């Protein structure tokens, strides 16, 4: 009997100490987020601003005590817009125990789709990858979390319609970068041209897109469109602004997709004054008029530092904040669902699929991510260059959502 009691006591002590040990472990609670960046490759102008935005938001969250008591550690890998380093980055995130990762680059996203699914870690690809990835059933671990090129095409046409007061018999020129990402919106535009009765003509710009004199001459002097939609990358957007302006086309009748819509593109084209009237599509809020941006500035001030210069490039900086905020929100949902325990990547994926009513004062659209819709509804905003800066012209909206959904459904049935 004595021995029995002793062993029970021993067991109790053992369990107790184990509980204390695990409690102590929980004290240093930490979640790891993986982030791929391009700070040195061909799209470095984006990464150098976007990634600091991401880090700053996470630093802000950590300075306020983290997410439900969990501190966030960001592991960043610069993939230089190359594919092998992106694979290496993914494996590194896995090794560090990341619960989610932010992808960077379209070919990189394509190469990682399958790995994400096998390893059951979600990856976000805002502005990258295929529009079809919005379908959560087909791509269960890939989350575009922002308007795809299809949704942007819908938004562009809707904006054109509003601007011109109808599309019947109008002529719209679509200028695109001649690569898969550039060609992606074509089926949507062709569909809408048929449905709305406007004439669509497409103008391909070959990589690297710094020479488009002949295309723009063709557009402005021969085709004479009523509206121009541009979908360009890298240096090409600023060249397009310069050329259109130079050939006398009114920029107020031009709308650019999300990678031709940053302050840097406009400044490189000769400054805000030159580009008066230029319209841009955005998937995250623009400008500094958000509480979260003010909080980040206050955080720097409290630390005795001045706010970094990246903050002035608000389009890309805010996109970084936007990605970080959605990552954090997904983790928060996951932790809450587990009653405060450390979530697994699988939990965080479920958390991401519950993101809803999270607008961060308008910086994030009123999106709703679900198991079926990883795009969150394809919300866009239109911002226009007015009086030397980008001003909001159209609040969050979904352009031709039913058409996009029909295409997504057709894509899902294809295989």
């Amino acid at each position: 009997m004595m021995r029995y009691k002793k062993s029970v006591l021993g067991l109790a002590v053992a369990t107790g100490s184990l509980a204390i040990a695990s409690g102590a472990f929980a004290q240093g609670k930490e979640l790891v987020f993986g982030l791929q960046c391009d700070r040195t490759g061909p799209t470095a102008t984006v990464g150098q601003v976007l990634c600091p935005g991401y880090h700053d938001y996470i630093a802000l969250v950590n300075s306020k005590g983290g997410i439900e008591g969990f501190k966030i550690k960001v592991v960043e890998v610069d993939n230089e817009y190359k594919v092998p380093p992106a694979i290496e980055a993914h494996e590194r995130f896995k090794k560090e125990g990341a619960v989610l990762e932010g992808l960077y680059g379209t070919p990189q996203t394509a190469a990682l789709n399958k790995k994400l699914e096998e390893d059951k870690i979600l990856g976000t690809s805002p502005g990258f990858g295929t529009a079809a990835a919005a379908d959560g059933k087909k791509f269960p671990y890939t989350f575009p979390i922002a308007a795809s090129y299809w949704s942007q095409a819908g938004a562009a046409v809707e904006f054109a319609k509003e601007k011109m007061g109808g599309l019947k018999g109008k002529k719209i020129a679509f200028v695109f970068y001649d690569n898969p990402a550039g060609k992606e919106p074509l089926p949507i535009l062709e569909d809408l041209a048929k449905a709305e009765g406007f004439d669509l003509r497409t103008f391909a710009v070959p990589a690297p897109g710094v020479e488009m004199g002949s295309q723009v001459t063709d557009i402005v002097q021969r085709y004479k469109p009523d509206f121009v939609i541009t979908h360009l990358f890298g240096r090409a957007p600023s060249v397009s602004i310069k050329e259109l302006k130079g050939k006398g086309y009114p920029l107020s009748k031009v709308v650019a997709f999300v990678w031709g819509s940053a302050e840097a593109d406009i400044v490189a084209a000769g400054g805000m004054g030159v580009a008066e009237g230029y319209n841009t599509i955005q998937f995250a809020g623009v400008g500094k008029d958000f509480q979260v941006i003010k909080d980040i500035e206050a955080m720097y001030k409290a630390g005795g530092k001045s706010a970094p210069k990246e903050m002035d490039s608000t389009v890309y900086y805010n996109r970084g904040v936007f990605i970080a905020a959605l990552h954090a929100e997904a983790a928060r949902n996951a932790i809450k669902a587990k009653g405060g325990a450390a979530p697994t990547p699988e939990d965080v994926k479920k958390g991401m699929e519950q993101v809803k009513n999270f607008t961060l004062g308008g910086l994030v659209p009123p999106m709703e991510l679900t198991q079926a819709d990883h795009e969150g509804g394809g919300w866009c905003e239109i911002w226009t260059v007015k009086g030397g800066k980008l001003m909001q012209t159209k609040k969050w909206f979904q352009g031709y959502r039913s058409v996009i959904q029909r295409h997504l459904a057709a894509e899902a049935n294809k295989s």
Partner: protein
Amino acid sequence: MFHREAGVFKTTYAADMALYPLPIAKWTIAVLALIFIVILPLTLHDYYLSILNLIFIAVVGALGLNILVGYTGQISLGHGAFMSVGAYAAANLAVKLDLPFWLTLPAGGLMAAAIGALVGVPSLRIKGLYLAIATLAGQLIIEWTINHVPAISGGAQASIEVPRPDLFGFVLNTQGRLYYFLLFFAVLAIVATLNLMRSRIGRAFIAVRDQDIAAEIIGIDIFRYKLLSFAISSFYAGVCGVLYTYYFGIANYEQFQLGVSIDFLAMIIIGGLGSVLGSVFGAIFVTLLPIVIRTLMEQVGSFFFTDSELASVVSGTRLAVFGGLIIFFLVIEPEGLNRLWRNVRSYFRVWPFSY
């Protein structure tokens, strides 16, 4: 460095021409095999295996380019495009006809070889920089074609997803399993190249490189051997592309653009033109060094910077350090890492009695 020729007497031609002329070399190979087949995969984390996997694939591609540039003396800026030819050929076969990898892999290689030989035709008339431009055109034409022909590219996205390779019902879907898959092909490529270079074909390549007129005079059909070199080199490139495709699970031409061709040229120049071991060194150097530099800088830098600052500091300086190291190694030994390794070896061969 423990290799000693003393007491090794060759009495037949076969012995003289053996791949491993010394008994101890066979032991070295056995030890290497043990390390790579048993010890590394059992002890290393998946992360390190994934880096090794990337190196294995790069080794295959670098060997192919070295056959053309290093051994035959022809220059090519189209290596990336040949990879994409192999990748798309294999992906189409794997998806449309549901063929297994052991058929799509050689098929992708052969397709790339055919296209490569075609792109190599200008090499019969032009040399050096002119040939570089001609092959550059080949690269761009192939990229454009894949981008604009849906029958090849499988639609507007120009990417074709392929299923994971499986062998006797054993799906190769983890880094560990892919490790053996890729190791096999890397070793196969190394052994094949070593043997190719000891054969009539390999010697003809070297003769063409050293002086093509002289080679023609001694009876080497330059037309045939230049095209053959392009074809063999592209075959390797095609296989490399297929391996990438199976490794990533997708064929996408944006993964094989001009930058990739240049990366591979960098590999063989750093590693050593015209040497098999050099190709391996080059592939390791270019793949591994950026990772090593980053890891070291992150460790050291974490004492001075916050995480956010560190990220921006590291990515900029890493490129500078990487570039600096390339220059450093090429200055101390212009013939590449392979020559450096041979210098070290020949120093220790007579050490400590160097006279």
